């Protein structure tokens, strides 16, 4: 008889307040172990594409910014290709990692990523997805990392046709996934709960 014998995924536990010790030790002054914090730099002088800055904060249910959160982002390069071995559509820009990791500032709660604006990537059925950046948020009190996406406000037409944004049933919530733009700086505030709760994904 055929049996379905799968293992279960290891259950998640909170990253706790001291995630920096393991993930960004230099950020808290624990220097001398790792030369550089992983994910701190996503690009170099040769990276192709439009340089952008993404800033924001992560708010709890009282509107207080988290001071102990860590965020990771994952995105395509300016041509819409991922710097990943499972990218089969072409070679991504070798001068762009596509992956960033930043803790929030311990006093202000603000995070900041220096990156490039991603190109569009396909949905599984071939339709284009609007340019977007995947976010993963962990902190004390978050039992399983939160997944969301940031979209670009100037991409109105692409956003309107985006198959993922199209899945958001309550249209008033779509705006929680769209950053605010000021020149090359985008602000993407994340609300864990409350009236403006960000749309989080089960991916």
């Amino acid at each position, binding site marked *: 008889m055929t049996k379905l014998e799968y293992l279960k995924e290891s259950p998640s*536990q909170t990253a706790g307040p001291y995630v*920096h010790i393991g993930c960004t030790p230099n950020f808290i002054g624990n220097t001398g172990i790792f030369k550089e914090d992983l994910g701190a730099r996503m690009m170099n002088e040769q990276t192709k594409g439009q340089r952008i800055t993404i800033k924001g904060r992560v708010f709890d249910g009282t509107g207080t910014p*988290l001071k102990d959160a860590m965020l990771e982002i994952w995105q395509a390069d300016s041509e819409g290709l991922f710097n990943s*071995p499972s990218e089969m559509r072409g070679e991504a820009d070798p001068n762009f990692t596509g992956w960033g990791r930043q803790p929030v500032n311990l006093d202000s709660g603000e995070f900041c990523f220096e990156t490039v604006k991603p190109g569009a990537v396909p949905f599984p059925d071939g339709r284009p997805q609007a340019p977007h950046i995947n976010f993963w948020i962990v*902190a004390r009190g978050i039992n399983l*990392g939160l997944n969301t996406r940031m979209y670009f406000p100037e991409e109105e037409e692409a956003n309107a046709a985006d198959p993922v944004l199209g899945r958001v049933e309550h249209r008033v919530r779509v705006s929680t996934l769209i950053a605010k733009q000021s020149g090359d700086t985008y602000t993407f505030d994340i609300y864990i*709960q409350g009236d403006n709760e960000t749309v989080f994904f089960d991916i």
Partner: protein
Amino acid sequence: MSKPTTNAGPFFPRDRNWHPPALSPNYKTSVLRSPQKALLSLGNTISETTGPVFGHNMLGELDHDLVQNYAKPGESAQGERIIVHGHVLDEEAKPVPNALVEVWQANAGGRYRHKKDDYLAPLDPNFGGCGRVITDENGYYAFRTVRPGPYPWPNGVNDWRPSHIHFSLFGSGFAQRLITQMYFEGDPHIPLCPIVRTINDPAAIEMLVAKLDMNHCVPMDARAYRFDIVLRGRRSTMFENRMEGN
């Protein structure tokens, strides 16, 4: 970078009843940090199935040795010397090679090297509490450290964390990302801990408890604990939906 030997299809759906729920009132900090609206379930796109790869060449020679990697020359961290080792597998029990495993922990007295930790136990000048390894082609990893101490934390009046090591796992895709904690077999604090108890299923908790592994102890030096980790499995890409004609 090398091309994958396994498939790169969408990940198996996460069993969110197996993971701890976002809202776990006995872990008080979760109350204001838990989404209240339903998550939007999304079959994976290429943004979720891809992920960065970390090369073995980025590792320093003591990254896997917390006993030595913050110690002054000729000295070493204080505490019970242990080796923690195991395999990173997926839900089909296949090894996950090249997985980045990052660990952090308190010292033998239960104190973290962190500017926000003011627990009265002293810092160990020879212990940083930070290490990382990348799994080999069999998904195997190993690091050496000291057993962390339990410590009190402000939740209930008298809540103590069991001895634990934090693990961050990076497999082959961004949707596989996982942070968890490893506990030690026989620790009486495990069933008392409100963070452990955010997990509802005792079988799930058991997956986080490392076992004393006498076969891998180094005589007159260090004991060994075995800790296998399971990341999400992936479907084959062969039958994924595509537009007709593609």
